[in-house]
């Protein structure tokens, strides 16, 4: 980015709530059914059908709002957003407008620019403000390809029509693509922690639009903004923002003007394109939805829900960082998901060694999971067993090298470390007397080398270590072996 300029970014996130049924009817809200199979008069927008609010939506929206420090309005109002589109069966979307479910929230999270290799330059905490979180229904999906008569026809699948969403609108608080990236990552993490969204961007459970403008550094007035849509992955989001910021700066420097418009990110070409200009913008003619009474939530209700909210990702990261003396990177990785954090804390508890637990979880566990293409929730090694393994390494029952072998086997078989050590005969020999007897045998078997060592060829010490290891199949404790060998050779 040009040093004379500053980017101003605001984000609108649509998150699908993972309720069992849709927001205004009892149809299943889970994807995967045959096209238009999860539908009824309500979500098809049939004449005469009426919406009835799903209570689970309210409890999930409450969780999301609380997790983002939003102020929940005791009374909020549903509104109709009117526009024509084939996948919008009623010709309006039921959303919220001037009295949203919640307002005035914030998150305070670590954020950092990245170097060329994508590594964080310096993590700093920054507070980003959230304007509002409101409840609305999703539309269906237009299908233009892959159907029997796609050459001449478009199709509509209304299974998604009426799936509940929350729209989370931020203040224009982001000054770079990476700030936006870190914020969306955090938002996703928070919604996952709260158990209200599956966070899958590819499947559209989390969608992101961005408002981008640039201004001269130090200027107070915002520049003209462009809205960018279709940012359906973290990579798209970051790349599209960088592209758009550069495009706007370049335009201004060349004496051009930014026009208010909606642009679409095209990932193949790595560019944003104009989708519609301000003149073509919709007049949504919002008005209060007469079919639904105002949504009221009591202080008691909010209180009850907040009791069931888990520790939130940033609070947990901070706690873990300080309690277990982790680095920022480590604490971030270990709190990536609630399940990962739970797992780590269980391993720590079982092993009694937070440091070693962190090392092993972040290296061995993550690698095995990645190779197996598994999530932490599918991990075949229980945190208890993993903790036991870490403990066995910590107290030198087995060496780190053996530990890796045992862990691989644990991951493959799900067996306990004790059992595998037994089976593999891997237990370390830590009894000095036993080691001494092995050492003595080895020295006796190599009189020539012993003579040379005695005459000052110190380098042969390594030879003896190797022979002892060989004789014990690598099971002797290395430190003890060193000590005993030295004692006998130098005697």
């Amino acid at each position: 980015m040009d040093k004379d300029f500053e980017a101003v970014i605001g984000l609108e996130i649509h998150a699908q709530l993972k309720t069992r049924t849709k927001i205004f009817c009892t149809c299943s809200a889970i994807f995967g059914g045959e096209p238009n199979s999860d539908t009824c008069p309500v979500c098809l927008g049939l004449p005469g059908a009426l919406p009835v609010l799903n209570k689970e939506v309210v409890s999930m929206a409450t969780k999301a709002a609380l997790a983002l420090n939003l102020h929940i309005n005791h009374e909020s109002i549903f509104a109709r957003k009117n526009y024509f589109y084939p996948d919008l069966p009623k010709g309006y979307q039921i959303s919220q407008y001037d009295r949203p479910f919640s307002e005035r929230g914030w998150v305070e999270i670590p954020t950092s620019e990245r170097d060329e290799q994508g590594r964080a330059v310096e993590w700093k905490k920054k507070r980003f403000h959230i304007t509002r979180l409101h409840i609305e229904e999703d539309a269906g999906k237009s299908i233009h390809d892959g159907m029997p008569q796609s050459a001449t026809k478009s199709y509509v699948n209304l299974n998604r029509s009426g799936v509940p969403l929350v729209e989370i609108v931020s203040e224009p608080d982001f000054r770079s693509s990476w700030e936006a990236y870190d914020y969306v990552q955090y938002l996703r993490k928070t919604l996952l922690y709260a158990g209200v969204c599956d966070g899958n961007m590819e499947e559209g459970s989390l969608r992101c639009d961005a408002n981008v403008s640039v201004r001269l550094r130090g200027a107070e007035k915002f520049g003209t903004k462009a809205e960018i849509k279709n940012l359906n992955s973290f990579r798209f989001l970051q790349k599209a923002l960088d592209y758009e910021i550069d495009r706007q700066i370049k335009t201004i420097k060349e004496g051009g003007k930014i026009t208010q418009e909606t642009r679409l990110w095209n990932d193949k070409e790595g560019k944003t394109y104009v989708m519609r200009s301000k003149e073509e913008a919709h007049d949504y003619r919002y008005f209060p939805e007469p079919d639904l009474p105002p949504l009221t939530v009591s202080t008691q209700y909010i209180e009850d829900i907040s009791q069931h909210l888990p520790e939130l990702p940033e609070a947990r990261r901070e706690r873990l960082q300080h309690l277990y003396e982790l680095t920022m990177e480590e604490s971030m990785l270990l709190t990536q998901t609630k399940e990962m954090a739970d797992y780590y804390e269980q391993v720590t508890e079982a092993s009694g060694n937070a440091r070693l637990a962190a090392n092993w979880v972040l290296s061995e566990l993550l690698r095995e999971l990645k190779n197996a293409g598994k999530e932490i929730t599918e991990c075949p090694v229980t945190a208890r067993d993993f903790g036991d393994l870490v403990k066995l390494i910590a107290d030198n029952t087995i060496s780190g090298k053996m530990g890796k072998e045992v862990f691989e086997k644990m991951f493959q078989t799900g067996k306990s470390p004790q059992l595998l050590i037994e089976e593999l005969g891997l237990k370390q020999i830590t009894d000095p007397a036993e080691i001494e007897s092995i050492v003595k045998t080895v020295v006796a078997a190599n009189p020539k080398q012993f003579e040379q060592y005695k005459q000052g060829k110190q380098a042969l010490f390594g030879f003896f270590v190797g022979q002892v290891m060989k004789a014990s199949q690598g099971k002797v404790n290395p430190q003890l072996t060193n000590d005993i060998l030295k004692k006998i050779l130098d005697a």
Partner: protein
Amino acid sequence: MELVGLTVDKFHSALKSGETTVEAVCKATFDRIEKLNPDLNVYLTVTKDSALERARQLDQQLAAGAELSPLFGVPTAIKDNICTKDVRTTCASKILDTFKPPYSATVVERLEAAGAVVVGKANCDEFAMGSSNENSAYGSVRNPWNLEHVPGGSSGGSAAAVAADLCIVALGSDTGGSVREPASFCGVTGLKPTYGRVSRYGLVAFGSSLDQVGPISKNAADSARVLGVIAGRDWHDSTSSEISVPDYLAALTGDIKGLKLGVPKEAFVEGLHPEVKARIQESIKNFESLGAEIVEVSLPHSEYAIADYYIIATAEASSNLARYDGVKYGFRDADAKTLQEMYKKTRDHGFGSEVKRRIMLGTYVLSSGYYDAYYLKAQKIRTILEQDFRKAFEACDLIVMPTAPVPPFKLGEKTDDPLAMYLADIYTVTINLVGVPGISIPSGFTSDGLPIGCQLIAPHFEEARLLQAADAYERSYPSNRYPNI
């Protein structure tokens, strides 16, 4: 069995005595429909086969000793903007010409559960928009009292069907007077319940904050009976009330001594037809002779009601009717090359001119820059009108006024002047804006023999009081006249 003047009570007595059967009365009804419908154009769809099959089942149940449920075997007409499963529901619009809903409205389910036999779908103004039934894509309904005259609207088919004895009871819908005005024009009883009293699920929406389904019948007792069946909480409709449903029939004591009847001083103003004025004043005297106490009340903001109504109703309608876009069901103009063109041609050719006028009005009042001046202001006036009524009801139990300012007018008389047509609703729209219940009962005739209706209005959820007064009046001052058809 004589169908003329047949009420549920009389019909059930005849069933009990074995004088008739459900099938016989249904058959006679269909014979009469076949004879009279070509002139009256009351029914858009007749469900003869299913009705007769059901009639036979009910007769078997009766023979097996079944109790008479409240609407057992009653031939019933359903306004064609109320969904009936697998039975064509057009809203009298070309855009829904072929539409067969996969579900029934809650009111229809409840009627059928109470034994009613649906005989057909009644003509109406397109999407219930109109006061004369001339806005139907399937032609005007004619007034059984004089075929040159309109039956009122929008539930003109339902009211005319009851008046012409082409059913015993009917369901209409009332957004700004659409049950009461045609009841008045056709000389029958029509009730608009309190907003929230009856489920709207399956009633094709026009003005969602105003719409209510209501019964049209030959007397107040039958309306009480039907209301008792259709009223009450329905989880499908979030605006339906949880207030329990009283026994309306039990409320019909015939005694209204001491009832305070409020006459709004604003009701008898310029533009009120002299014959209507005379009949209503007569009716007020009749109420007095039954022991009611007449008091003057004031509804000072009534003059704003029409304007207010046509902002709120059209705003909601413009949104409610957006779903008729040719994408999913109903009419689609085949001659379109692009999506935009499909929308435009489908809606231009699918909707009639009054519907399009209201969609445009409603779109306008909700537009950015106009919303505050129209829609928001209209909502404020609505609150003021509610306060007017709350205050008036501090001084009286019921309010009485004309149902319509004029007797049934001639077909074509007002079709070129939408504003004059809108004024036919001057006494009814306020009641919908405020949400209180109102009933129109026969109040005599013009010198030309055309019916005039008297409207009674009660506070929220006081339908029992409303029906009690209507019933008491009808008992002492029965009309005893039937259309000569």
